[in-house]
C-alpha cells in the first residue's frame, strides 16, 4: 500500500489541532505528508535514473508542488474520477498506484502503467479511476467535464477532478470546458495549478487577468488557495466536492505554487529570477507539513526513512523488470468486440472522512 495509514501514527481519529482543517485526523495529516514524501522521493530517484540514462526521453517532475495533487486527491472518494496531469504524481500514489510501477513507467519497462507505450507521467491506471493525460494541454478538462456530465445524467453523487497549469488556461479547450461545466452545472472540480510559469513563459505573458477571476463569468465560484499547503488544498477541494455532489455545480480552485525545477530535466530555468526561487524555497510544502505533524509528536525522520526504503525497494524491483517485447508494438490498437468492457474503476480513497482507507 503506497500511502494512507502508516506505521508512525499516533492513533486513529485523534482530532486535528485548531490550526488545521477540522476534517483531518492525525492519520490523515500524516498520510498527506507521507504521500508528498513518496512523490518527492520517487521523482528524485527518477531524476537520478534519468541522469544515469535509464529514463529515456525527457523527465518532468512536480518538485515543490506536491501539496497540490496530494491535497486535492485526498478529498476524492473512490468512486470519483480524476484526470491527472504532469506535475501530479501524488494523485496516482494516493489512488493506489505502486511506486515500482511508476518507476518502471519512467524507464519504459513492461511493468510501467502503459507497458512502455507512453513515457514519464503520461499515464493513468484505469483501475484507480484515473485517466492519464494527453500532452495537448488542457484537453483533459473536457474529459473531466464529460465524466461529470455522465454522473449528473445518471444522478450519481460522484464528481470528477482535473488539474492544469496556468499556461494551459490560454487554450480554447479551457474555455469550452469552463463554459460546458458552468452551463450544465456539472459536478466537476478544476484545479488550476498556478506555478508562475508555462515552460519559460511567466504568467504575465499568458494573461492580463488571473484566470481564477474568470470563473464567475462562467457561473461558478473560483477560489484561490495556498498551493503549498496540503491541508488547505485538501480543504478547498473537500468543499468543492461537497458542492459538486450536492448539485451545486463546478468549482475552479487556483492552487498558488511555484515550479521549483526546470520545465523538464533538460531545463536549467535560468530565466527564473533566483530571488523568486529562494523565496519559494521557504514555503516548501513538505517542510510545512513536516513541521505540523512533528508538533503532533510524529517521528518525521522515521517516516522519511520508511519512504526512502520503500522507494529503494521499488527502484530495485523496477530495474529488475524487463523492457516490453517489440513483438507487441502493434497490439491493442483496437479493443475487440467480444472482449470484456473496460471502464474506469474505483481508486483508493484514504481520507478518514470516507470511513475506510481503501
Amino acid at each position, binding site marked *: 500500500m503506497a500511502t494512507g495509514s502508516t506505521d508512525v501514527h499516533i492513533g486513529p481519529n485523534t482530532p486535528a489541532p485548531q490550526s488545521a482543517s477540522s476534517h483531518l485526523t492525525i492519520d490523515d495529516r500524516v498520510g498527506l505528508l507521507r504521500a508528498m514524501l513518496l512523490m518527492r522521493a520517487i521523482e528524485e530517484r527518477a531524476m537520478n535514473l534519468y541522469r544515469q540514462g535509464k529514463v529515456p526521453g525527457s523527465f518532468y517532475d512536480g518538485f515543490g508542488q506536491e501539496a497540490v495533487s496530494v491535497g486535492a486527491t485526498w478529498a476524492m472518494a473512490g468512486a470519483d474520477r480524476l484526470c491527472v496531469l504532469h506535475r501530479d504524481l501524488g494523485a496516482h500514489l494516493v489512488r493506489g498506484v505502486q511506486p515500482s510501477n511508476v518507476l518502471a513507467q519512467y524507464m519504459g519497462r513492461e511493468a510501467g502503467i502503459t507497458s512502455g507505450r507512453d513515457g514519464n507521467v503520461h499515464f493513468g491506471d484505469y483501475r484507480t479511476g484515473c485517466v492519464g493525460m494527453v500532452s495537448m494541454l488542457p484537453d483533459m478538462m473536457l474529459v473531466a467535464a*464529460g465524466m461529470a456530465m455522465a454522473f449528473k445524467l445518471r444522478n450519481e453523487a460522484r464528481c470528477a477532478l482535473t488539474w492544469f497549469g496556468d499556461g494551459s488556461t490560454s487554450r480554447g479547450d479551457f474555455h469550452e470546458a469552463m463554459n460546458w461545466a458552468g452551463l450544465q452545472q456539472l459536478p466537476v472540480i478544476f484545479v488550476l495549478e498556478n506555478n508562475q510559469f508555462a515552460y519559460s513563459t511567466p504568467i504575465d505573458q499568458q494573461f492580463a487577468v488571473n484566470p481564477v477571476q474568470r470563473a464567475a463569468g462562467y457561473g461558478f465560484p473560483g477560489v484561490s488557495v495556498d498551493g503549498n499547503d496540503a491541508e488547505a488544498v485538501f480543504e478547498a477541494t473537500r468543499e468543492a466536492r461537497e458542492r459538486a455532489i450536492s448539485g451545486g455545480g463546478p468549482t475552479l480552485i487556483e492552487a498558488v505554487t511555484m515550479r521549483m525545477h526546470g520545465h523538464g530535466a533538460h531545463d536549467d530555468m535560468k530565466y527564473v529570477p533566483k530571488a523568486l526561487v529562494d523565496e519559494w524555497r521557504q514555503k516548501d510544502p513538505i517542510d510545512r507539513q513536516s513541521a505540523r505533524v512533528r508538533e503532533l509528536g510524529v517521528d518525521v525522520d522515521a517516516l522519511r526513512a520508511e519512504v526512502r526504503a520503500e522507494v529503494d525497494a521499488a527502484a530495485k524491483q523496477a530495474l529488475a523488470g524487463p523492457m516490453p517485447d517489440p513483438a507487441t508494438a502493434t497490439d491493442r490498437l483496437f479493443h475487440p468486440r467480444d472482449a470484456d468492457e473496460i471502464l474506469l474503476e474505483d481508486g483508493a480513497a484514504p481520507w478518514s472522512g470516507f470511513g475506510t482507507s481503501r
Partner: protein
Amino acid sequence: MSELTYLRAISDGLRTEMRDDERVLLMGEDIGVYGGAFKVTDGFIEEFGADRVMDTPLAESGIVGTAVGAAVVGLRPVCEMQFADFVSCGFDQIVNVAGKMLYRQGLPVNITVRLPSGGGFSGGPFHSQNPEAWFMHSPGLKVVAPSTAEDAKGLMIASIRDPNPVIYMEHKNLYRRVKGEVPDGSYETPFSARVARAGTDLVVITYGAMVHTALEATEDLEDASVMVLDLRSLVPLDERAILDAVRECSKVVIVDEANQTCAAGAQVAAMIAEHGFEDLDGPVVRVAAPDVPIPFSPPLEAAVLPSVDRVREACRQLLEY
C-alpha cells in the same frame, strides 16, 4: 423490411440502438428541439428526452472531449458534427484523446462521431468536405462510410456497439436521394467491403456517394462486365476483398470524392500497387476531386467533383488499355 431513405435509415439505426441500450446518448448542435440540421434526429427529443438528445453549445472540441469523458465512465455517446467540415474544430480531441487512449493506457473509448459530409448541392468550401482521410491517417480510429440505406442503419448500430471510436461518414447528397429496403429491428453491417455489382473486366473501387456514381457510370459500358466494390469501411480496410477484386478483374479504377492527394483512394491504390501488382493488367486509375476547395457555384462544383462522365471515361480508357 421498410423502404427508407438513407437519412431515415440512419435515424432508424440511432433509434433502434437508443431503445435497446440506455447508455446511448446523442450530442450535438441543434439535434434536440430542432431535430438536427438535416433532421436526422427529428422527433428524438420527444421520445428520449433532452438528456439523451443533448443540444450542446457551439463547441466541437467540447462535444468530442466531453463525449470521451462520458464514454470512459460507461455511456455510449454519438456525437454529431453539424457538417463534417466542422470536425476540424474538434480534430485534436478526436486524434489525440479518443484515438490514442486504448493503445496508451488500455482504456477503450466507445464514441461514435457522425460526419455529414460531401458535396453536390452548392455547399461551398465549408459545407462539402470529405475529411475521412485525415482520420484514416490517425491511428486508433475506425472509419466507416455507408452508401446504401441498409448499410447506413447496420453500420450505425455496429459503430455504436463497437468499443472503439468510430468516425461515421454520412454523405449528405445521399440523404434523400437514395432509398432502399431496410430490415426492421436490430442488425449490424460488418466493417468489410461489399460487391455492389459483380463483374470481371474491370473493378471500380469506391465508397459512399461515389458508389452510386460508379454504378451509373458503368451500367451500360459497351459490352464490358464491370464490378463495383463498395468499401463500406475505410478503417479497417478490407484488403482481401480489394485484392480479390483486382485478381478477378485485373483492371482497377478508384473513385474518391475527396481531394485526391493522400485520399482514401491513394491508400487503396498504393496497397494494390504493392500487393496486387502481379494481377494488374493496366495502370491503377484514380478519379477524385482535384486539390482545390470545393467551389460553390454549380458549374465550378460540377467541374471539380467526380462525375458519372468522368468515371465512365476513365473506365472506357482503361478497358481499351
